[in-house]
């Protein structure tokens, strides 16, 4: 039980976010209005994705130092969880855009950057499936994973800052700078980031456990 406190924390925080995020008052901003509440669900996805992908890179680096199947599984499942978070982030953003901008998808640097980063990680899954030898697959996908992280992060955090964007937080559109005045929103936003990030790690841990069990079972059958 001592080890599992963070899972309980994640559940409590997310319950709080679901209730408080929908009920607490939010500032009235032009265009955004009530859709500003998407901040609690859309933005934490990207935080969670970044952290879980970072964990995946950490496992990949460790795999390259000491190759064990367990580290490979952890890196793989973390990357998959990151991809899942990314897709949920794209979906929540897309639904929000439909009601705010009037279109599911716009030609915006942030949106395109996120989509391309998803393509990069999709290539990671394709790469994994095109090897037959397990050790070679683990090593080479670890190499690609590190490389992909190094090129995908500029897409998220550097390139969109260089161009004007319709996305909140860029080009004079309302975002964090204005929320700073509103401590009510911070009260929900920070717990949301922590809660969703913890949930991402929990998912990755569960998925790796299932894969590890499958591996053990397979080894037992072979023996």
């Amino acid at each position: 039980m001592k080890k599992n406190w963070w899972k309980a924390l994640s559940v409590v925080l997310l319950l709080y976010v679901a209730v408080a995020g929908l009920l607490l008052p939010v500032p009235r901003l032009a265009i955004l209005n009530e859709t500003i509440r998407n901040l609690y669900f859309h933005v934490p996805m990207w935080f969670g994705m970044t952290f879980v992908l970072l964990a995946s890179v950490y496992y990949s680096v460790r795999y390259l130092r000491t190759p064990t199947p367990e580290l490979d599984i952890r890196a793989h499942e973390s990357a998959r969880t990151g991809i899942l978070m990314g897709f949920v982030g794209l979906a929540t953003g897309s639904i929000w855009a439909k009601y705010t901008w009037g279109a599911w998808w716009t030609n915006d640097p942030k949106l395109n950057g996120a989509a391309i980063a998803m393509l990069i990680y999709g290539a990671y899954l394709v790469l994994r499936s095109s090897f037959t030898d397990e050790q070679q697959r683990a090593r080479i996908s670890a190499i690609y994973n590190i490389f992909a992280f190094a090129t995908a992060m500029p897409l998220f955090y550097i390139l969109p800052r260089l161009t004007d964007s319709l996305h909140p937080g860029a080009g004079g559109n309302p975002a964090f700078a204005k929320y700073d005045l509103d401590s009510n929103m911070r009260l929900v936003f920070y717990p949301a980031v922590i809660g969703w990030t913890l949930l991402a790690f929990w998912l990755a841990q569960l998925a790796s456990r299932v894969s590890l069990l499958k591996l053990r079972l397979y080894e037992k059958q072979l023996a």
Partner: protein
Amino acid sequence: MQKDFRLEWRQRAALNGMLLYVSSTVFVCYLSFSSRGGQLPAPAWNALFWIVLLFSAVNAVAKGFLQESRGRMLYYYTLVRPQAVILAKIAYNALLLLGLALVAFVLYSVVLGNPVQNVPLFVGNVVLGAVGFASTLTLVSGIAAKATNSSTLMAVLGFPLMVPMLLLLIKVSKNALDGLEFEASRSSLLTLVALNMIVGAVSYLLFPFLWRS
């Protein structure tokens, strides 16, 4: 290091093929647009130029590892450090791509017209692009060469990874086309240099692990 570079240079049989590849691609573009009298609007000119470069870069660099025989790899392995191999490969590929890009640029301006107003900026941008493509694609081709369906993987892995670079390159060359002053594209150029350095450093660090298998 220098010897390694010479070893690379010796197997340049593909070079003439690549030159021909670029020329025929440019010519196909020219013929496809000839209904407009061979004159393209500047943004289309820019986009087409970088697409030609992108495809010839993928084809040119893919040859580097895919055509290497297993025996020769082992031979290199006994002779030099892996870091020297990746640096030599990147340098060779960068020079190769630079040559290809300049040939493409000259041919392209001959047949499709040259709307570039700030030529030094444009050429500097092409140099950065060649180095960036080379350092990204060299590692990717090394990865793809290990897998079973390597030619598909080369495109699948390479294209998304090159997109951030490509976006910046297209932006800067758009500025060069419009003849904006240097200040307008300085931050993009700096980001491009930083991106090249990140990719180069990561390739340098990761290649020894790839090499061992």
